[in-house]
């Protein structure tokens, strides 16, 4: 499966766990995290699981449906 990713700005607490889990994919630029580069499915899943705020949303790139990390 190929995944795409989105950050829920309202949920993001800028904890930075996603940056550690997937450096180069996520970055803390403003007061929330941002997606700054492409990541493998494994990286995206790891980041979504690490996020204490549940702010990383994963979608199936084909169907557009939200998937569990």
């Amino acid at each position, binding site marked *: 499966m190929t995944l795409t990713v989105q950050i*829920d700005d*309202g*949920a993001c*607490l*800028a*904890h*930075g766990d996603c940056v550690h889990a997937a450096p180069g994919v996520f970055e*803390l*630029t*403003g*007061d929330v995290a941002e997606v700054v580069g492409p990541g493998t499915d494994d990286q995206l899943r790891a980041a*979504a*699981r*690490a*996020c*204490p*705020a*549940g702010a990383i*949303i994963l979608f199936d790139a084909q169907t557009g449906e*939200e998937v*569990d*990390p």
Partner: protein
Amino acid sequence: MRIVIVGAGLAAQRCAEALRANGHDGPITMYGAEPHAPYDRPPLSKAILAGERPELSLRPPIWHADHDVDLRTDTRVTSLDDLAFDRLLIATGANPVMIPALAGRENVHVLRTLDDALRLETALAGSGHIAIVGAGLIGQEVASSAVARGVKATLIDAVANPFDALMGPGSGHHLRALHEQAGVELRLGRRLIGVRDDGTLHLDDDTLIRADHILVAVGVRPATEWTPWPKGIPVDAEGRTPIPNVFAAGDATGVAHWEAASRQGTAAARAMLGLPPRAEQPPLVWSDQHGLRIQVIGNPRGATNLKGPGPFMYERDGRIVAVVLMNDPGGLREARRLIDTPIREAA
């Protein structure tokens, strides 16, 4: 506009970040009583006590210089009158409560600061037994960290089921079972009635507990004795205090959780700049114990248990008010959606 932030913890740091992210380009001064730049406290009761030395800085060391924030560590502000500002944030956090009979003893600890944690870690390294007075989040996590490294832990609390506070009414025994399986010795529903000269703890059922070290974890008091509100600062949803242009956030307002401090710091920054508040989110608390992550969305206090485990759900007046997840980080988004929905839809 000159902005002063007193305190250099999470709420203070988030406020500074949100100010810069939202376009404030005037001066920001941040005063911290500790010698450290803003750092993350949750690992103090976990990774640090496991003997690890993770990077705790909330932002890279260069952040404050890069964003033109004048960070003055080792500087304790003692009066509002000493400060010149257009907007002020008070985010001085809280101090652990000490039990008078245990104060001043060399083997008695509290856990709030990095220095406290390093001292406690050294104690655990050379210790066979720690007694923990108070079974709140800190007490529970320290007990978990202690037994994980082979140190006997005795967890004492006057409340018979202190685990209900985190897990929700009637569900505390699930967490209690984890502590028992891990070998934590529980002395619950027992009050400390005396301390002998050699540090032996005397409980109200005449149990005597002689540990190498003692952690006092019976809660915190807002560190606001230097303000007009020594018992904690009253604020509205955007952090405004009763004094114009003075804001407060974090534990200084009496709300002692990571997520709340983070949100309050950001909210105060937005209010200082005249920006509308971000959408409200149900509160979130999490704790790592015995290798499990527990996440609490909403507030289960006083609510009725509907179901659980997997996940635990609580209702009040026919609506879901809290969901508790055990090792299910993927369930967090769904849990958040369930909050405030009628029971029938959730079931």
